[in-house]
Structures are given as structure tokens and as C-alpha cells.
């Protein structure tokens, strides 16, 4: 198999152009799916027999929580690539993922709390799933903080990679916490073996929401990676050429 496309993609200028082309599509498609999810979930789907309309927060909560875990795994994988192959691009992706992941973890926690108040009678309970997700937020913020403390961007990314790898121990704990411990949080409904425990007319908006959130996140990470690349490579020729291109375009308009 020919791997030259892969090596070419790893170089900052070609990845920048690749992301420039891809990000609007991912973001646009993601937004479209999210709108479908919101319409399907908030208008078309029937109310739950027990939770009534309050269950509809699932269309924000579940995608945000799923993304928060996936992004952490992606960050740890980038950390491993950073440490083993010293790939500049992986460093930038790692740094780009941390704030996005932290935001979605916070979103999952906040929507979970809003859902918990009417259903459990409390915004917060000291439950395995909730505390593990909170620790995940601290881990994300730790990576952001550690990155900010370094002067040298490359050393920062490698240190963050190490921290991300150690923190990855928490990911299976979050995912399986509802099976391992007696939890107030409900068990796995969709991401499990066998048939999902959700009726089809409630499920399709949720699947749209999941896919839409993933695409939206991918676009956000690509955009942040682009910024990081520009910041790090600001002295190089391709960035200066990009700058003059943009200047030229601004002069014409």
C-alpha cells in the first residue's frame, strides 16, 4: 500500500489546507443533523410515559457525554503519537482537543444536573458515574493548565501527552461505572451489546444528535488545530504566504 498521502497529510501546510476544505463540510453537516435531532427530539418524538417531556434533555446530554469520552481517548492517542513519533501535528491536535473536550464534559455535567433535579430530586448525587465524569473534567482542565504553564510549545505538548495517557485510566471507569457500582444513573441504553432499550421514534433523533455532535466536534477540533498550527509556524514561509494571500484578497474586496 502506498502511504505517501499519509506522510503528506502530516506536514503542517498540507494538513492546514486539508482542514480548511474539510471543516466547513463537517461543521455544516453536523449542524444540519443537530437541527434534525432537535426538531425530531423536541417536536416529533412522543413524551416519555414516566418522565414526560423532561426526558427530552437526553438529546443534548447523551451526545455531549459520549463526545467527552471519545475526545479524551483521541487526546490520549495523540499523546502516545506525540511521545513515540514526535509528530508535530499530533501535538497540535492534542492541544486543540483539550478545551473542546472540557466544554463538552461541562455540558454533559450541567445537562445531567438539570435532568437530575426533576427526576432524582437533587442536582448532584455522589454517584460513581457523576463523580467519574467530574474527574474527567478536572483531567481536561489539568491538561489545559499544564499546557499554559510551559513556555516551549513542544515540551508542553509532550508533558500534556504524558498526563493524558495517565488520565486515560479514568475513561473505562466512566463508561462502565453504571455496571460496576450500584448507581442512580441509568445503565447503558444505546452503547451496549444487543438491542437498544429505546423505542425507534425516540431513537432516530438521538442517533442524529450523536452523529451531529461528533461531526461538529471534529470541525471544532480541526479549526483549533489550524489555529495552533498557525501560531506555532508563524515564522515559516507557508504561513507568511498564506498571510499575503489573505491580504491580497482583502485588498481586492
Amino acid at each position, binding site marked *: 500500500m502506498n502511504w505517501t498521502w499519509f506522510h503528506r497529510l502530516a506536514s503542517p501546510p498540507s494538513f492546514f489546507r486539508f482542514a480548511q476544505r474539510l471543516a466547513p463540510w463537517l461543521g455544516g453537516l453536523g449542524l444540519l443533523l443537530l437541527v434534525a435531532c432537535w426538531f425530531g427530539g423536541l417536536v416529533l418524538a412522543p413524551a416519555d410515559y414516566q418522565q414526560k417531556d423532561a426526558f427530552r434533555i437526553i438529546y443534548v446530554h447523551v451526545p455531549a457525554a459520549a463526545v467527552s469520552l471519545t475526545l479524551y481517548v483521541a487526546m490520549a492517542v495523540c499523546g502516545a503519537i506525540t*511521545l513515540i513519533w514526535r509528530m508535530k501535528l499530533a501535538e497540535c491536535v492534542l492541544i486543540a482537543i483539550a478545551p473542546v473536550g472540557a466544554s463538552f464534559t461541562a455540558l454533559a455535567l450541567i445537562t445531567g444536573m438539570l435532568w437530575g433535579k426533576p427526576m432524582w430530586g437533587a442536582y448532584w448525587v455522589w454517584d460513581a458515574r457523576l*463523580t467519574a465524569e467530574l*474527574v474527567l473534567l*478536572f*483531567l481536561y*482542565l*489539568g491538561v489545559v*493548565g*499544564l499546557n499554559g*504553564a*510551559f513556555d516551549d510549545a513542544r*515540551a508542553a505538548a*509532550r*508533558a500534556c501527552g*504524558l*498526563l493524558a*495517557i*495517565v*488520565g486515560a485510566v479514568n475513561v473505562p*471507569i466512566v463508561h462502565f461505572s453504571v455496571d460496576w457500582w450500584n448507581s442512580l444513573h441509568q445503565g447503558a441504553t444505546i452503547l451496549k451489546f444487543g438491542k437498544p432499550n429505546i423505542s425507534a421514534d425516540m431513537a432516530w433523533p438521538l442517533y442524529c444528535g450523536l452523529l451531529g455532535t461528533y461531526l461538529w466536534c471534529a470541525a471544532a477540533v480541526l479549526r483549533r488545530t489550524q489555529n495552533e498550527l498557525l501560531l506555532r509556524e508563524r515564522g515559516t514561509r507557508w504561513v507568511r504566504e498564506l498571510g499575503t494571500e489573505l491580504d491580497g484578497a482583502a485588498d481586492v474586496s
Partner: protein
Amino acid sequence: MSAFVALFARELKLAARAKTEWLMPPLFFVIVVTLFGFGVRPNDPQLAAFAPAILWVGALLAALLSLERLYRSDQEDGTLEQLLVSDTSLTFAVFVKSLAHWLLSGLPLVLLAAPLASMLGLPSAQFAPLVLGLALGTPCLSFIGGFVAALTVGLPRGGALLPVLVLPLIVPVVIFGAGAVRAAGQGLDAGAPLYFLAAILMFTLTVLPWLAAAALRNAFE
């Protein structure tokens, strides 16, 4: 073996010359626990119920105090660079340093735990799981904390960052450690959480010195 003795003896000698440094964590532990006694109304029976959490969090915070110094002073006087270029494995050196850290600032806390527990009114049946749990849990902190100290060694703002990075990583230690004491309080077997602590300790002993060595090399690149 001679490298082990040399490194370990050096840590002890340095500690013997700076007595206040390793006297601070036990003192801090005593003060924190006493403050809880002042915070509630006199002889509140609730205090005994919260004693496991107070003692565990107090001990971990106290051990955290001396973590920043673990590599900072070695980095300032150039010892760390000597370790990096020497033919002794860096992973091994990190292991020895973390072990010495535990001996100097973890073990005194373990020994202090029982008297402090009786001060808080913890029933004596819970002493054994408390002390045993701390004996397993404080080395975890020395090794996890040693890794984070290695990550932040050259940083000008590392001091404030260190606890923020360490504390989320030691959540499982607190859960199982305080859990063992509570289990004993309810007349249950404290074995299961203690075995979990032992498993976490084995994991940290084997994996983290290796990662800490990688972090130190990164700091000097």
C-alpha cells in the same frame, strides 16, 4: 544495589540537614485534623462519622506539601542533570526518590493516624483498616505525585499547578481508603477496598516511575 544505597542515603542525609522540611507534613496533618475539631460544636458525635474522610484527606494534603520539593531542589543545584547523564537508569532513580519521599513524609502520617483517629472519636475497631489503608495509600500519592512533580519540574508556575493535577488522579485512593474504614465501621469486611488499594499501589509502583522518567527527560530537552 550500590546505586540504590547511594541514592537513598543521599535523600536521607539531605532530609537530616533540613529537619523543618520533613517535620512540616506531620505538623500540618495534626493542625488540619484539629481544625475540624474546632469547626464543629464540642464533642459532636458526627465528628466520628466524618473521621475517615477527614483523616484521609488531611494525610493526602499533608503529603502533597513536600512533593514540589521532590525534584525542584535537585533541578536547581544540577543533581537532576547528573542523574540524567549517569549510567544509572533514570526510572530506577525516580523510584528511589519517590520511595524516600514516602519514608520521610508518608510514613510519619501513617503513624500519626491512629492517635489522631482516637482524638476524633473513631471506634478502635476501625483503626486497623485506617492505618493499613494509609500504609497502602500514601505510597500511591508519593508515586503519582512524583510523576506530576516530574511533569512540572522546570515550570515557573508549577507550584500552584501541582495539587490541581495530583488531586484528580488520587480520587480512587481516597474512595477505597476511606471506604475501607467505613466498611469496618458498619461491621463489614474491609478486605475488598484494601485489596483494591493494594492493586492501585502495585500499578503505580510499576508504571509511574517509568512515566516520571519520561517526563523528566522531556523537561530537560
